[in-house]
């Protein structure tokens, strides 16, 4: 078990509970997709898992270690995090940006060595983004920026990679490309956790799905068992159906025609 979460809960200091009793277990090479309505606390949950927020209770073990009893550096060698796409203040070249993934392996006074740059180059070549190497990170497209960030997290060589809504702000084609990139990561042995608003992405990724509902409880299981008409209607409050489509090679989510509430 690469990641094991037991009885995790989070409340704000004013007592407002976001979630409680969260249990998750994930193997290497497995994908977990977290779904949930707006404002329910998906990001809070992901931030707790990513070691950015301290949960109010419970335990997170990654690679056998309690994430809160090891240093940030040690944690960063196990856990990589891909934030939502944003434009940073400085336009570092993509190569200089990608090499920052080596940070957990370098001391405070160290700089990346020739080997670190070589690893960055190798990863960029394997992703076919070598042409971006000398372009400023601020001047490439959203899809390219997502690829650059992914390259950085691979250079970091973690065992688990977490994505905060990786398909946000991307066009339809780039969304599908990201889904394929994530599937590919799982094939290479990374465990992946991601949040999304698109149940179809969960279906395409397979593996496990978790739904955080309005009561702050997490239902977690195999995607096939979790993505059902009833569960989706429950979280999104619209008439959604999961149907088999031959062309898609499996299930897809569609809006029911009879639905008058939308």
């Amino acid at each position, binding site marked *: 078990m690469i990641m094991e979460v037991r009885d995790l809960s989070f409340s704000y200091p004013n007592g407002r509970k976001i979630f409680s009793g969260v249990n998750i277990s994930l193997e290497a090479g497995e994908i977990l997709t977290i779904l949930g309505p707006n404002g329910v606390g998906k990001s809070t949950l992901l931030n707790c898992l990513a070691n950015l927020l301290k949960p109010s209770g419970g335990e997170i073990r990654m690679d056998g270690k309690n994430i809160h009893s090891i*240093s940030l550096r040690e944690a*960063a060698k196990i856990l*990589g995090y891909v*934030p939502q796409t944003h434009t*940073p*203040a*400085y336009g570092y070249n993509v190569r200089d940006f990608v090499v920052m993934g080596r940070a957990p392996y370098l001391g405070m006074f160290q700089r*990346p060595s020739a080997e670190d740059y070589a690893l960055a180059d190798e990863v960029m070549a394997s992703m076919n983004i070598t042409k971006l190497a000398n372009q400023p990170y601020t001047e490439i497209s959203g899809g390219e920026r997502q690829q650059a960030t992914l390259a950085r997290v691979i250079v970091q060589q973690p065992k688990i990679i977490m994505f905060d809504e990786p398909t946000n702000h991307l066009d339809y084609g780039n969304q599908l490309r990201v889904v394929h990139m994530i599937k590919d990561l799982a094939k290479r042995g990374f465990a992946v956790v991601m949040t999304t608003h698109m149940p179809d992405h969960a279906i395409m990724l397979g593996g496990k799905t978790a739904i955080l509902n309005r009561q702050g409880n997490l239902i977690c299981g195999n995607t096939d068992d979790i993505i059902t008409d009833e569960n989706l209607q429950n979280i999104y409050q619209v008439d959604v159906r999961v149907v088999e489509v031959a062309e898609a090679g499996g299930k897809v989510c569609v809006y029911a025609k009879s639905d008058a509430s939308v």
Partner: protein
Amino acid sequence: MNIGAEERARQLSGRTMSNAQYRLLLTGMILALAAMIIFAMCIGRYPVKVVDVVRVLWARLKTLLGAAEPAKNWDPMSEGVILTLRLPRIIASVLVGGALSLSGAAYQGVFKNPLVSPDLLGVSNGACVGAAIAILLHLNDFGIQALAFLMGIGTVLLTMSIPRLMRNDSVTMLVLSGIIVGGIMNSVMGIIKYVADPETELADITYWIMGTLKKATSTDVLMVALPILITTVLLLAMRWQINLLSLGDNEAKTLGVRIGLVRGIIILCSTLLTACAVCICGTIGWVGLVIPHLARMIVGPDNLKSLPMTWVLGSMFMLVVDTVARAATSLEIPLSILTGIIGAPFYLYILVKQRMKMS
């Protein structure tokens, strides 16, 4: 579309210089700085020949290293002018320019904002209050320097303690705290100016605020040289961490950076640099804001390259400005006036140039 990409890559190649090009450029700039230092020693009301400058400095260096006093085959007046008047002042200007620029670049990285200057957390405001109090108390020059230094550092510590009290370690909280503390210091400054004797004290305070190296002596230089050297080396050694911090708190944290510690060290080093500079020459505007921009324009935003470049450019800029300040007219020109007149339009030029590249 392919042609467009190639065209774009070609346009951008100006800012993506290779390591070899960068090293050559930096070495060239350091040699140019050395040449400018020697040239600046010749300039002034009492002109000195370049040969004499080189001879005097060389002889001085040899005696410092333990050689016997050589025969003096130059004008003794030149030696006095070079060693006691110009050398301390020129070294001071190089140290001050480098210090202000470097701390500006570090602040801009840590606060993820290229519009930030080293006064953000109140070091200059505090130093002004310290110097003004010292002037009101009729302390000597050393007293003014000491109080300016202490108040500058103290103000930043006060600014940094507010987010701790609020249990909020975000950058926004720190910036707001800087605005609050800076505002209070400005008011205190107002009170001091109001009660100061306009004939003597107020004139001194105003003159100090505008900045000058007129009074810089070799003792001053020796006093600040060591702290400036240590903090400069520390900042340069940590410059890759500035890259990481500039990504934002969450990203830096997930890359394993202990943001509180690293940011704290960088802010303290930068603050010490600014405080050292300010206490020997008063407040000088624009340098810490503009020079880092210029460096990034030349070598790109990667702090591994832009930080050393910032230091060299800042030193050169201040050397030129101070030489103009002391030699252009018979009257000493306050430094802030010159840095403002040169710095502000230059900043506009950078903005226009960047704007054109973006569109």
